[in-house]
């Protein structure tokens, strides 16, 4: 699913963002962001609302000006350039198709601006429609299209003039779940085919994990982690990120001399602690936990608790376990337990491999990883 980032199409460019800052009065929207995006890469800006991800995207597009900082597309400094000179394609959440033009006219608009001839425009419009599987829709009015179709037209319009960079601002938020998941794959396929450098904004972590080469997590105007999806998922840099990405239950641990202790017991880890901070937590992913029955393999870390209940969720069973300090964690497995299922109220032991034992600092690291 993840083709090599950096192989980009002929025209695509890398993006270099340096010390980008924006303040609105006392509120800091972006705080000295540094980010290098490779040519042809599909990168997602992920974060909760107010994190600054949309502001950053708007700055790349030229619609919001930073207070200070630099944005380079390849070798060219573009931070002072107006939007229409930056050679970017943009897709908005509400599609923003021109209602007073039909589909073909919408697609032809950027080409007309660039002085293409009529026949060339017609030709490229037809090709673009084929690319998004809307061949023959040229004569339709915008209001005759469904949500998914509108989004595809918006995409086609954003790439028809072969921009160097594609920016997308939560383009799928308005679609229902099934359509959204289908479109995620389509957008990714389109990206792979064209090799454009793409910057995608979303607050949906699942979407980010599905589509991206790399994910840049933003929180409160700062870039807190930049990693490939798998690394981000398995090695979050802070409690916030662990909570935000995937389902997690966090349990505080004590940190002494480079060791992490849970309820007095030292946890076996397969790598050194990320941070020397005092306040850290054990981030538990339900699917990485095992309800142990019988002997305990020695290499596993063990947590003791009392089973509260099992919940059948269709494709998996989630078991809720209460720990000694009253906290509740979840354990997810895809099959039933058979005859030896623990009953609610039973004392149980939960095993977790050192590889999956993730210790994260409670606060954001001061420098991004």
């Amino acid at each position, binding site marked *: 699913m993840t083709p090599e980032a950096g192989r980009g199409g002929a025209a695509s460019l890398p993006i270099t963002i340096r010390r980008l800052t924006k303040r609105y009065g006392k509120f800091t929207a972006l705080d000295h962001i540094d980010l290098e995006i490779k040519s042809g890469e599909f990168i997602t800006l992920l974060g909760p609302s107010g994190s600054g991800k949309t502001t950053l995207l708007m700055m790349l*597009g*030229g*619609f919001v000006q930073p207070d200070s900082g630099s944005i380079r597309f390849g070798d060219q400094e573009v931070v002072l350039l*107006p*939007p*229409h000179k*930056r050679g*970017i*394609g*943009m897709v*908005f959440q*509400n599609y*923003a198709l*021109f*209602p*007073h033009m039909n589909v073909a006219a919408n697609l032809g*608009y*950027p080409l007309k*601006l*660039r002085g293409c001839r009529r026949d060339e425009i017609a030709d490229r419009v037809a090709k673009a429609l084929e690319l998004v599987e809307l061949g023959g829709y040229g004569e339709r009015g915008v209001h005759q299209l469904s949500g998914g179709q509108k989004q595809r037209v918006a995409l086609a*319009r*954003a790439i028809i*003039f072969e921009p160097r960079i594609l*920016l997308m601002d939560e383009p799928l938020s308005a679609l229902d779940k099934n359509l959204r998941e289908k479109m995620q794959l389509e957008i990714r396929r389109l990206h792979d085919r064209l090799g454009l450098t793409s910057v995608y904004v979303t607050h949906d972590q699942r979407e980010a994990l599905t589509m991206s080469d790399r994910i840049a997590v933003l929180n409160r105007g700062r870039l807190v982690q930049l990693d490939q999806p798998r690394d981000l998922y398995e090695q979050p840099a802070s409690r916030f990120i662990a909570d935000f990405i995937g389902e997690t239950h966090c349990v505080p641990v004590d940190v002494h001399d480079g060791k992490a202790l849970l309820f007095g017991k030292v946890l076996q880890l397969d790598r050194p602690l990320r941070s020397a901070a005092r306040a850290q937590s054990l981030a538990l992913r339900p699917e990485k936990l095992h309800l142990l029955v019988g002997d305990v393999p020695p290499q596993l870390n063990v947590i003791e608790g009392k089973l509260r209940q099992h919940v059948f969720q269709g494709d998996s069973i989630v078991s809720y376990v209460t720990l000694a300090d009253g906290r509740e964690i979840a354990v997810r497995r895809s099959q039933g337990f058979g005859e030896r299922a623990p009953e609610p109220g039973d004392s149980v032991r939960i095993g977790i491999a050192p590889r999956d034992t993730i210790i994260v600092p409670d606060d954001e690291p001061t420098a991004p990883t």
Partner: protein
Amino acid sequence: MLGKAATSTQITHLQRLWLYLLCGLVVVFLVAPTLLVVPMSFSDSRFLQFPPPAWSLRWYRAYFNSIEWRDATFISLQVAIWTMLVSTVTGTMAAYGLHYCRLSLRRSVQIALALPMMIPVILIAVGVFMLFAPLGLNSTISGLVLAHSTLAIPLVMISVSAGLRNFDANQEMVARSLGASRIRAFLTVTLPQIANSVVSGALLAFVTSFDEVVISLFVAGGDKATLTRRMFLALRDEIDPTIAAISTLLILFSIVLVGASQFLRPGSKT
């Protein structure tokens, strides 16, 4: 039927009958007087008798045959059309600029541009007259157009601003991302979609100028007299029944314009 509850608060139609009557009377009060002018225009008599003793078209003939009345009408039309053009262009530009500007200066500009609506027209008329006198702009079409535009611009701005507020700003952003400069994006994407508001504003500007009395009294003298000035003087000095005929024609004109504006803006308020 009268016993039914009129509203969710359960008061019946019967209990509110006085309200319906009162409102009906007020509506009649608003509309009927103007319409009463129409039969008067077909009266044969020189005097304001109602009902008229005999019917004839003599006052219409008097209007169409009179060079002064025709000239005055022509002048009014000219001034109104130019005013419409000038105020619509400058007003739309100003509405756009103010809509997107974020400077604190914006407030003061907004107020300054709205002032002509708040100052009594007689003062503007006197001021304009004094200003134009040394410049020789009194009794000229240009002078009238300039003066009327000061009244029309705020109205155009109100209409266009409303249109801009209802407009999806993302579209202009998209157009610019696709390669259009701000002006190009405005002309090709924004303007076609706020056209209704612009045209409404234009119509309002036209009517404001065409019906304008006070400034025209001061500034439109001599052979550049507007229709309104002539009518005013005719009404004040001696009641020429030709006015009835002109009034009827004006009423017809208004109805056409109202129809046009309603057609353009379905479902919105002024």
